[in-house]
């Protein structure tokens, strides 16, 4: 094989990109990880919830550096405030709890610290990291490799590599470079807004509020955020309301069954984002290129959660690349479809199933019936007996 500057160049140092970089470097590949930002994780577009299992599965030790607060279960509310609670401290008291020898179910993480921590782990594993470096484009070459153009502190740099990994989030430009169909439907992208607040009590549970009245097309949430803070947010589907997410969040905070609970809240941060409640991309590969994380729409279509799927997908991508490159297999003419097949079998097929469940609910035009279905589905999804517990 002709020489390259790097075996793999990863665009985007979020959880998916950094996890791909860490495992690829650990496997002995020469890895460059770039991110255009000066500070990872910001602006925050995520609520930060991830299960302990998801961290452990990819070798991330829960560390005080990035944990806001431990989580022990879920409370799912219907539109009127009735709730189903799955508190693992009472469901499995011998295993879950805050006492010595017991463990949390999951965590709410600080995305600035979490993303920086994962990047650091990638660097320590041998990956090279360049911040303030934006991807401009890539070109597959006749020799089977490719070039990637980067802009680093205003300086344009062209590198030769075997594979470009697009880990540049929901707004992914890398997928568009390759002409992949990355366009998401307006009915499947929730516009989300959340406030970090002081003055709202929480109880170690992730609280999910369903109901068209509060969050048409999505749901609202109240998550513990550590230090006595909480996170109140919601996502809405634009075609199901004439109002922006901010209007709905104001309404949820001032008119819902939680209005007394929120009455003394003070807003400390404002965050937002687009959250896909959609199927994974049908094509996540091109010549010398694969996508991971939000860029490949590796997001749970029921919960909108993308952290577990990002780090799990990053490991799958790195495992695939290290094997594929070690065997000197081709990188063009559809050869990287093998990555997508591996991802589907390990994670994606379940996500497609969740997408089917979600689609059935929101295709129901009878709002009270849809409310009931969403509430029951959410309550079941987070129950200890759910078949989707590990997603």
């Amino acid at each position, binding site marked *: 094989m002709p020489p390259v500057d790097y075996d793999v160049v990863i665009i985007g140092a979020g959880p998916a990109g950094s996890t791909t970089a860490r495992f690829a470097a650990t496997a002995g590949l020469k890895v460059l990880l770039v991110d255009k930002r000066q500070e990872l994780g910001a*602006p925050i*577009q995520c609520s930060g919830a991830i299960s302990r299992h998801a961290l452990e599965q990819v070798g991330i030790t829960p560390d005080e550096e990035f944990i806001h607060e431990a989580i022990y279960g879920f409370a799912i509310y219907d539109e009127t405030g009735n709730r189903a609670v799955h508190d693992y401290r009472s469901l499995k008291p011998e295993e879950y709890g805050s006492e010595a020898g017991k463990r949390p179910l999951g965590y709410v993480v600080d995305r600035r610290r979490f993303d920086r921590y994962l990047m650091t782990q990638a660097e320590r594993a041998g990956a090279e990291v360049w911040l303030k470096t934006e991807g401009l*484009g890539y070109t597959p070459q006749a020799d089977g490799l490719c070039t990637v153009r980067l802009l680093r502190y205003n300086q344009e740099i062209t590198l030769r590599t075997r594979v470009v990994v697009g880990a540049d*989030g*929901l*707004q992914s*430009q890398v997928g*568009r*470079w390759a002409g992949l169909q990355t*366009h*998401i439907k*307006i009915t499947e*992208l929730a*516009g*989300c*807004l959340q406030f970090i607040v002081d003055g709202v009590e929480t109880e170690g549970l992730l609280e999910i509020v369903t109901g068209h009245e509060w969050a048409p097309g999505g749901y609202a949430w109240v998550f513990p955020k550590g230090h006595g803070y909480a996170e109140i947010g919601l996502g809405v589907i*634009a*075609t199901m309301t004439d109002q*922006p*997410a*901010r*209007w709905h969040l104001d309404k949820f905070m001032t008119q819902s069954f939680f209005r007394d609970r929120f009455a003394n809240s003070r807003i400390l941060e*404002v*965050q*937002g*984002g*687009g959250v*896909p409640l959609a199927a994974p991309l049908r094509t996540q590969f091109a010549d010398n290129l694969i996508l991971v994380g939000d860029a490949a729409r590796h997001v749970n279509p029921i919960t909108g959660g993308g952290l577990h799927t990002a780090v799990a997908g990053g490991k799958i991508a790195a495992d695939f690349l290290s094997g594929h490159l070690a065997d000197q297999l081709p990188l063009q003419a559809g050869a990287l479809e093998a990555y997508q097949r591996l991802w589907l079998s390990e994670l994606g097929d379940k996500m497609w199933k969740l997408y089917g469940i979600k689609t059935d609910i929101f295709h129901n035009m009878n709002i009270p019936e849809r409310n009931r279905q969403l509430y029951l589905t959410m309550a079941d999804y987070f129950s200890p007996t759910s078949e989707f517990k590990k997603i």
Partner: protein
Amino acid sequence: MSKQQPVLFHIGWNACINCGACVAICPQEAGFVSPFDTIAVDRPCDIACLLCEQICPVDTITHERVGIPVASNGVNGQ
């Protein structure tokens, strides 16, 4: 894609929270972005689907119709 008259987007930066939802929903090809990770505001959009205005959580994207199609050098075609 719609055959609309091109529009030039305006973003009220005071309300923008840099969430990226406008870029995520945008059907344009790569590069129709601003340095602030929003949709481009320095050149007309010839698709004019206005999905970015619809998705914006803080309702801070507006537009004006412009008569002349997109210039090839990417500058405002007015």
